[in-house]
Protein backbone atom coordinates (compact mmCIF):
# COMPACT_ATOMS: atom_id res chain seq x y z
CA UNK A 1 0.00 0.00 0.00
CA UNK A 2 2.73 2.40 1.00
CA UNK A 3 4.66 1.86 -2.17
CA UNK A 4 1.45 2.45 -4.10
CA UNK A 5 1.02 5.90 -2.62
CA UNK A 6 4.69 6.63 -3.26
CA UNK A 7 4.25 5.65 -6.87
CA UNK A 8 1.30 7.95 -7.30
CA UNK A 9 3.28 10.86 -5.93
CA UNK A 10 6.14 10.02 -8.24
CA UNK A 11 3.72 9.97 -11.15
CA UNK A 12 2.41 13.40 -10.21
CA UNK A 13 5.93 14.76 -10.00
CA UNK A 14 6.76 13.22 -13.34
CA UNK A 15 3.69 14.78 -14.94
CA UNK A 16 4.71 18.18 -13.61
CA UNK A 17 8.18 17.63 -15.01
CA UNK A 18 6.78 16.66 -18.40
CA UNK A 19 4.56 19.71 -18.49
CA UNK A 20 7.54 21.96 -17.76
CA UNK A 21 9.63 20.36 -20.47
CA UNK A 22 6.88 20.26 -23.11
CA UNK A 23 7.34 22.94 -25.74
CA UNK A 24 4.64 25.55 -25.14
CA UNK A 25 2.46 25.45 -28.21
CA UNK A 26 2.16 28.94 -29.55
CA UNK A 27 -1.58 28.84 -29.83
CA UNK A 28 -1.99 32.44 -30.99
CA UNK A 29 0.51 32.11 -33.85
CA UNK A 30 -0.92 28.71 -34.74
CA UNK A 31 -4.43 30.15 -34.90
CA UNK A 32 -3.27 33.08 -37.04
CA UNK A 33 -1.61 30.68 -39.47
CA UNK A 34 -4.69 28.43 -39.55
CA UNK A 35 -6.86 31.51 -40.18
CA UNK A 36 -4.78 32.68 -43.14
CA UNK A 37 -4.33 29.20 -44.65
CA UNK A 38 -7.98 28.25 -44.30
CA UNK A 39 -9.14 31.65 -45.53
CA UNK A 40 -6.96 31.44 -48.64
CA UNK A 41 -8.16 27.92 -49.53
CA UNK A 42 -11.78 29.08 -49.15
CA UNK A 43 -11.07 32.10 -51.40
CA UNK A 44 -9.64 29.73 -53.99
CA UNK A 45 -12.84 27.68 -53.67
CA UNK A 46 -14.94 30.81 -54.19
CA UNK A 47 -12.93 31.71 -57.29
CA UNK A 48 -13.50 28.21 -58.71
CA UNK A 49 -17.20 28.44 -57.91
CA UNK A 50 -17.49 31.90 -59.53
CA UNK A 51 -15.67 30.58 -62.59
CA UNK A 52 -18.12 27.66 -62.80
CA UNK A 53 -21.19 29.90 -62.57
CA UNK A 54 -19.94 32.66 -64.87
CA UNK A 55 -17.98 30.75 -67.47
CA UNK A 56 -19.75 27.37 -67.60
CA UNK A 57 -23.14 28.85 -66.54
CA UNK A 58 -23.58 26.07 -63.99
CA UNK A 59 -26.53 26.14 -61.58
CA UNK A 60 -25.78 26.40 -57.87
CA UNK A 61 -25.71 22.68 -56.91
CA UNK A 62 -23.61 21.84 -59.97
CA UNK A 63 -21.21 24.69 -59.23
CA UNK A 64 -20.82 23.33 -55.69
CA UNK A 65 -20.02 19.84 -57.02
CA UNK A 66 -17.60 21.33 -59.56
CA UNK A 67 -15.81 23.27 -56.81
CA UNK A 68 -15.59 20.23 -54.54
CA UNK A 69 -14.19 18.07 -57.35
CA UNK A 70 -11.53 20.62 -58.36
CA UNK A 71 -10.46 21.24 -54.74
CA UNK A 72 -10.29 17.52 -54.01
CA UNK A 73 -8.20 17.06 -57.17
CA UNK A 74 -5.81 19.80 -56.05
CA UNK A 75 -5.59 18.47 -52.47
CA UNK A 76 -4.96 14.90 -53.62
CA UNK A 77 -2.37 15.87 -56.25
CA UNK A 78 -0.46 18.23 -53.95
CA UNK A 79 -0.39 15.44 -51.36
CA UNK A 80 0.97 13.01 -53.95
CA UNK A 81 3.67 15.51 -54.89
CA UNK A 82 4.54 15.95 -51.21
CA UNK A 83 3.69 19.66 -51.20
CA UNK A 84 0.53 19.51 -49.09
CA UNK A 85 2.28 18.10 -46.03
CA UNK A 86 4.73 21.00 -46.10
CA UNK A 87 1.82 23.43 -46.28
CA UNK A 88 0.23 21.52 -43.41
CA UNK A 89 3.29 21.94 -41.21
CA UNK A 90 2.94 25.69 -41.50
CA UNK A 91 -0.82 26.31 -41.71
CA UNK A 92 -1.96 23.54 -39.33
CA UNK A 93 -5.74 23.23 -39.15
CA UNK A 94 -5.96 25.70 -42.04
CA UNK A 95 -5.07 22.78 -44.31
CA UNK A 96 -6.90 20.03 -42.36
CA UNK A 97 -10.40 21.49 -42.05
CA UNK A 98 -11.07 22.45 -45.72
CA UNK A 99 -12.14 19.72 -48.14
CA UNK A 100 -8.59 19.69 -49.56
CA UNK A 101 -7.56 18.29 -46.16
CA UNK A 102 -10.14 15.53 -46.59
CA UNK A 103 -8.41 14.61 -49.87
CA UNK A 104 -5.06 14.74 -48.08
CA UNK A 105 -6.33 12.36 -45.40
CA UNK A 106 -7.23 9.88 -48.16
CA UNK A 107 -4.00 9.96 -50.15
CA UNK A 108 -1.47 10.03 -47.28
CA UNK A 109 -2.26 6.68 -45.59
CA UNK A 110 -2.94 4.99 -48.94
CA UNK A 111 0.53 5.96 -50.19
CA UNK A 112 2.06 4.88 -46.91
CA UNK A 113 0.54 1.39 -47.04
CA UNK A 114 1.11 0.75 -50.74
CA UNK A 115 3.50 -2.13 -49.98
CA UNK A 116 0.61 -4.06 -48.43
CA UNK A 117 -0.92 -4.36 -51.87
CA UNK A 118 -3.47 -2.73 -54.12
CA UNK A 119 -6.52 -4.14 -52.36
CA UNK A 120 -5.76 -4.29 -48.63
CA UNK A 121 -3.04 -1.64 -48.85
CA UNK A 122 -4.21 1.24 -51.04
CA UNK A 123 -7.83 0.14 -51.41
CA UNK A 124 -8.46 -0.23 -47.70
CA UNK A 125 -6.22 2.47 -46.25
CA UNK A 126 -7.81 5.17 -48.46
CA UNK A 127 -10.60 5.11 -45.88
CA UNK A 128 -8.64 5.14 -42.63
CA UNK A 129 -9.81 8.70 -41.92
CA UNK A 130 -12.29 9.26 -44.75
CA UNK A 131 -14.24 6.15 -43.66
CA UNK A 132 -15.25 7.50 -40.24
CA UNK A 133 -16.02 10.90 -41.79
CA UNK A 134 -18.37 9.30 -44.32
CA UNK A 135 -19.91 6.95 -41.73
CA UNK A 136 -20.81 9.75 -39.34
CA UNK A 137 -21.63 12.31 -42.03
CA UNK A 138 -23.91 10.09 -44.10
CA UNK A 139 -25.54 8.37 -41.11
CA UNK A 140 -26.39 11.65 -39.41
CA UNK A 141 -27.72 13.08 -42.68
CA UNK A 142 -30.06 10.08 -43.05
CA UNK A 143 -31.29 10.62 -39.48
CA UNK A 144 -31.86 14.30 -40.24
CA UNK A 145 -33.73 13.38 -43.43
CA UNK A 146 -35.95 10.89 -41.58
CA UNK A 147 -36.69 13.34 -38.77
CA UNK A 148 -37.54 16.10 -41.22
CA UNK A 149 -39.83 13.68 -43.10
CA UNK A 150 -41.67 12.71 -39.91
CA UNK A 151 -42.04 16.11 -38.30
CA UNK A 152 -41.80 18.80 -40.95
CA UNK A 153 -44.35 18.26 -43.67
Amino acid at each position, binding site marked *: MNSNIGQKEKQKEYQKYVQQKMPK*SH*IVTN*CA*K*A*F*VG*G*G*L*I*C*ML*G*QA*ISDFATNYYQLAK*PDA*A*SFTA*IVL*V*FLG*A*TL*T*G*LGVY*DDLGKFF*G*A*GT*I*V*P*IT*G*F*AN*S*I*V*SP*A*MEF*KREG*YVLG*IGAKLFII*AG*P*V*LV*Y*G*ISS*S*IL*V*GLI*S*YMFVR
Partner: protein
Amino acid sequence: MNYFNVFLIGGAICVVGQILIDKTTLTSARILVIFVTAGVILSALGLYKPLVDFAGAGATVPLTGFGHSLAQGAIEAAKSSGVLGAFTGGTKAAAGGIAAAIFFGYLNAVLFNPKTKK
Protein backbone atom coordinates in the same frame (compact mmCIF):
# COMPACT_ATOMS: atom_id res chain seq x y z
CA MET B 1 -19.72 36.94 -53.33
CA ASN B 2 -17.64 39.22 -51.17
CA TYR B 3 -14.17 37.68 -50.97
CA PHE B 4 -13.48 39.37 -47.64
CA ASN B 5 -16.41 37.48 -46.08
CA VAL B 6 -15.18 34.24 -47.65
CA PHE B 7 -11.73 34.73 -46.10
CA LEU B 8 -13.14 35.79 -42.73
CA ILE B 9 -15.54 32.89 -42.18
CA GLY B 10 -13.35 30.25 -43.83
CA GLY B 11 -10.43 31.32 -41.66
CA ALA B 12 -12.55 31.47 -38.50
CA ILE B 13 -13.84 27.91 -38.98
CA CYS B 14 -10.24 26.68 -39.35
CA VAL B 15 -9.25 28.54 -36.17
CA VAL B 16 -11.85 26.46 -34.31
CA GLY B 17 -10.06 23.37 -35.62
CA GLN B 18 -6.67 24.75 -34.57
CA ILE B 19 -7.91 25.44 -31.04
CA LEU B 20 -9.19 21.85 -30.84
CA ILE B 21 -5.75 20.60 -31.95
CA ASP B 22 -3.81 22.78 -29.50
CA LYS B 23 -6.10 22.58 -26.47
CA THR B 24 -7.25 18.97 -26.65
CA THR B 25 -5.64 15.64 -27.51
CA LEU B 26 -8.12 14.95 -30.31
CA THR B 27 -6.58 13.35 -33.42
CA SER B 28 -7.23 14.98 -36.77
CA ALA B 29 -9.52 12.08 -37.70
CA ARG B 30 -11.74 12.85 -34.70
CA ILE B 31 -11.68 16.54 -35.52
CA LEU B 32 -12.81 15.89 -39.10
CA VAL B 33 -15.63 13.64 -37.83
CA ILE B 34 -16.68 16.34 -35.35
CA PHE B 35 -16.70 18.98 -38.11
CA VAL B 36 -18.81 16.93 -40.52
CA THR B 37 -21.31 15.95 -37.84
CA ALA B 38 -21.45 19.52 -36.53
CA GLY B 39 -22.15 20.68 -40.09
CA VAL B 40 -25.03 18.20 -40.42
CA ILE B 41 -26.57 19.24 -37.07
CA LEU B 42 -26.14 23.00 -37.57
CA SER B 43 -27.58 22.69 -41.05
CA ALA B 44 -30.58 20.67 -39.82
CA LEU B 45 -31.29 23.36 -37.23
CA GLY B 46 -31.20 25.99 -39.97
CA LEU B 47 -28.13 27.69 -38.49
CA TYR B 48 -25.65 26.94 -41.27
CA LYS B 49 -27.60 28.32 -44.25
CA PRO B 50 -27.21 31.97 -43.15
CA LEU B 51 -23.45 31.43 -42.94
CA VAL B 52 -23.41 30.08 -46.51
CA ASP B 53 -25.45 33.07 -47.70
CA PHE B 54 -23.00 35.41 -46.00
CA ALA B 55 -19.69 33.76 -46.88
CA GLY B 56 -20.24 31.37 -49.81
CA ALA B 57 -17.20 29.11 -50.17
CA GLY B 58 -15.98 30.36 -46.78
CA ALA B 59 -18.71 28.18 -45.30
CA THR B 60 -18.99 25.43 -47.94
CA VAL B 61 -15.28 24.55 -48.40
CA PRO B 62 -14.55 23.59 -44.74
CA LEU B 63 -15.75 20.11 -43.81
CA THR B 64 -18.72 21.58 -41.96
CA GLY B 65 -19.92 22.60 -45.44
CA PHE B 66 -19.68 18.96 -46.52
CA GLY B 67 -22.01 18.12 -43.62
CA HIS B 68 -24.28 20.99 -44.65
CA SER B 69 -24.68 19.68 -48.20
CA LEU B 70 -25.31 16.14 -46.86
CA ALA B 71 -28.05 17.42 -44.53
CA GLN B 72 -29.68 19.77 -47.06
CA GLY B 73 -29.69 17.01 -49.69
CA ALA B 74 -31.36 14.58 -47.27
CA ILE B 75 -33.95 17.13 -46.10
CA GLU B 76 -34.91 18.25 -49.62
CA ALA B 77 -35.12 14.70 -50.99
CA ALA B 78 -37.16 13.60 -47.96
CA LYS B 79 -39.65 16.35 -48.81
CA SER B 80 -40.06 15.16 -52.40
CA SER B 81 -39.70 11.38 -52.10
CA GLY B 82 -40.13 10.54 -48.42
CA VAL B 83 -38.12 7.87 -46.63
CA LEU B 84 -36.35 6.87 -49.84
CA GLY B 85 -35.20 10.45 -50.28
CA ALA B 86 -33.89 10.60 -46.72
CA PHE B 87 -31.56 7.76 -47.64
CA THR B 88 -30.49 8.89 -51.11
CA GLY B 89 -30.58 12.69 -50.84
CA GLY B 90 -27.52 13.36 -48.72
CA THR B 91 -25.12 11.11 -50.56
CA LYS B 92 -26.48 12.36 -53.91
CA ALA B 93 -25.78 15.97 -52.97
CA ALA B 94 -22.24 15.18 -51.86
CA ALA B 95 -21.57 12.58 -54.58
CA GLY B 96 -19.22 14.80 -56.59
CA GLY B 97 -16.85 15.34 -53.70
CA ILE B 98 -16.99 11.73 -52.48
CA ALA B 99 -16.42 10.21 -55.93
CA ALA B 100 -13.62 12.66 -56.73
CA ALA B 101 -11.95 11.94 -53.39
CA ILE B 102 -11.98 8.18 -54.05
CA PHE B 103 -10.91 8.50 -57.70
CA PHE B 104 -8.15 11.10 -57.37
CA GLY B 105 -7.12 9.64 -54.02
CA TYR B 106 -6.60 6.23 -55.58
CA LEU B 107 -4.77 7.61 -58.63
CA ASN B 108 -2.37 9.66 -56.53
CA ALA B 109 -1.68 6.83 -54.11
CA VAL B 110 -0.83 4.56 -57.05
CA LEU B 111 1.30 7.12 -58.90
CA PHE B 112 3.28 8.63 -56.04
CA ASN B 113 5.34 7.34 -53.14
CA PRO B 114 5.66 9.05 -49.79
CA LYS B 115 8.60 11.44 -49.58
CA THR B 116 11.55 9.83 -47.85
CA LYS B 117 12.63 11.68 -44.75
CA LYS B 118 15.60 13.91 -45.37
